[in-house]
């Protein structure tokens, strides 16, 4: 497997992506090699570190052949890429949460609802067809502060451990989706560099399975 351009997501999935590439024998890298440059050549492949939401952009436009990205990013992206492998790390859930003691938290959904979220597309899909009038408020971060500040009745946000929700006195009402990291590929790269892309997919799948197996045994 040579000559692939692979986009990696900065942020919470970055260390996991580097670990998986290393354990799969794809690239001998750790997160620190990107401190100097956001583009690294390793074992005949080029690795670039970009913002998570930009991974599908690079891949769809063919500026990268493959990418590692959270499913939660793909929910929000209208980009046309192949989603090849569930890499099984970076698990998190998209949940609707409301302040402790609120009517909503007791299951009373009546009336209209103001929901703060960083995930407007997922929110639209989640609330579509529900008999509730929802006003979405798109925020860019710290969504969990919105109810206490009086900005929203509830939040639709990603949680891995539930810790942030608890710290902000929010309780989960419903799950809107669950996410893990995915390997995605450009449609033309899958055909023109199919041997390399399929080898990468198989190597990452094996590595993800063995990590999962090891965690299961622990």
């Amino acid at each position, binding site marked *: 497997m040579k000559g692939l351009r692979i986009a990696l997501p900065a942020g919470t999935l970055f260390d996991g992506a580097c670990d998986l590439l290393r354990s799969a024998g794809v690239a001998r890298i750790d997160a620190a090699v990107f401190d100097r440059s956001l583009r690294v050549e390793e074992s005949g492949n080029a690795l670039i570190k970009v913002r998570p939401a930009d991974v599908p952009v690079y891949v769809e436009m063919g500026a990268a052949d493959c990418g590692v990205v959270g499913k939660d990013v793909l929910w929000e992206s209208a980009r046309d890429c192949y989603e090849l492998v569930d890499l099984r790390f970076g698990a998190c859930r998209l949940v609707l949460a409301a302040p402790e003691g609120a009517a909503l938290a007791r299951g009373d959904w009546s009336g209209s609802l103001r929901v703060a979220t960083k995930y407007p597309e997922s929110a639209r899909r989640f609330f579509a067809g529900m008999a509730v009038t929802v006003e979405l408020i798109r925020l860019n971060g710290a969504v969990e502060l919105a109810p206490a500040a009086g900005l929203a009745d509830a939040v639709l946000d990603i949680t891995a451990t539930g810790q942030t929700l608890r710290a902000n006195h929010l309780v989960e009402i419903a799950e809107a989706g669950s996410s893990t990291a995915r390997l995605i590929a450009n449609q*033309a790269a899958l055909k023109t560099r199919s041997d390399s892309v399929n080898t990468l997919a198989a190597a990452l799948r094996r590595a993800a399975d063995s990590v999962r197996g090891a965690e299961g045994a622990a």
Partner: protein
Amino acid sequence: MAAVVGDPRSTPALGRAGGFSDLLPGAAGRRRDLIEAFVGAFESWGYGLLGTPLVEPLDTVAAGIGAARQSQLFRFMDADGALLTLVGERTVSVARVVATQLQREQLPLRLCYAGPVLRNAPLLDGRRREAIQAGCELIGHAGLAADAECIALAAAALERGGVRGVQIDVGHADFIPGVLESAGLDADAQRIVLGALARRDLVAVEAALERTDVRDAERRLLLAFPTLRGGREILDTAAIGLGGDRPRGAIEQLMQLWELIEEHGVTQGVHLDLGAVRDWDYYTGPTFEVFSLDSGFPLGSGGRYDSLLERFGFPARATGFVLHVDRCNDVLTRRDGEPQPPAALRVAWSSGQRVVALSLAKRLRERGVAAVCDLDLTDPRATDAPAQACSDGVHWIARGARGQGSLDAAVDALTGPAG
């Protein structure tokens, strides 16, 4: 802060609609060359060039293409209240023309087109909203020979346009739906898997298959589907253990199609791709896509669409393809750089020699050499113009050497050996 000259923020009239681009001399010329090469190839295979409008009634378009693609059309209303669209592709227009004006022609009909198509895509996604498509439709022939001809013609047209080293992946629209059916999946499960495949979400395909009791042979095929590519040999591999008439029929057709493509002598660069993900509601038989290492998007695509024309009241089998001219132009730019605008040969003239200069320029153009004649009098001694009309005859610089003589001698020297 000083305004930047030409900055549309400071001069609103200089704005350009997002997703639309200008091509400067050079790039525009090469795109024109590509269109001419493609249409030239189509016509040399006997495909008649059709002119169809940029605007079609929404009802016409809606009869031809699915809801997802309809939502990406520019729509507007004319003064009579008719709902119109700017075309997003041109096969539907060809189908309309065939059904209304060419229905008495002898079949098969060979037609081609080239022109802009528009897509009302979100502004910031970096995709073109206007693109040139050049394509062919072969209407009224049900046989695989027609599909092979389209594949061979697409390859020939790209070759003629100088778009080399392409890869053509041939698949069959009936294979994957057929495998799902013969695997014993119920209609719901089939719909879920096909939907996931159409979204190119193989993780969801895997999850959907885990929930069902698909037979092993089919499960193995469906999970391996991105790897179901290769030469003729993959058809034998795929056929092992595969039940069901539909997928076997698709494989049988691809075997025959491969032989026909071989007879055209174009199997170089052609792969079979049983995992091809295409629009299963539109295509009914063999399909193909053209790829290049230098493009993240297909350069062309095509296939058999036997059910389109009957929606226009003209039941006829048909197959065809489209080439994406702008993507081909991108590939050439990536390989060769931005094309230079063609250089015209400059003719200068001294006092009283303007007529000679105009005559020289005219004769150069007749010999196929682009020439510009100076608009104003210049001192020929002070210019570097390769051709100068002076009172003592015509002076020229050709192939690094200077010469002087008659108009005829100058034309010969500047255009190379006559003939």
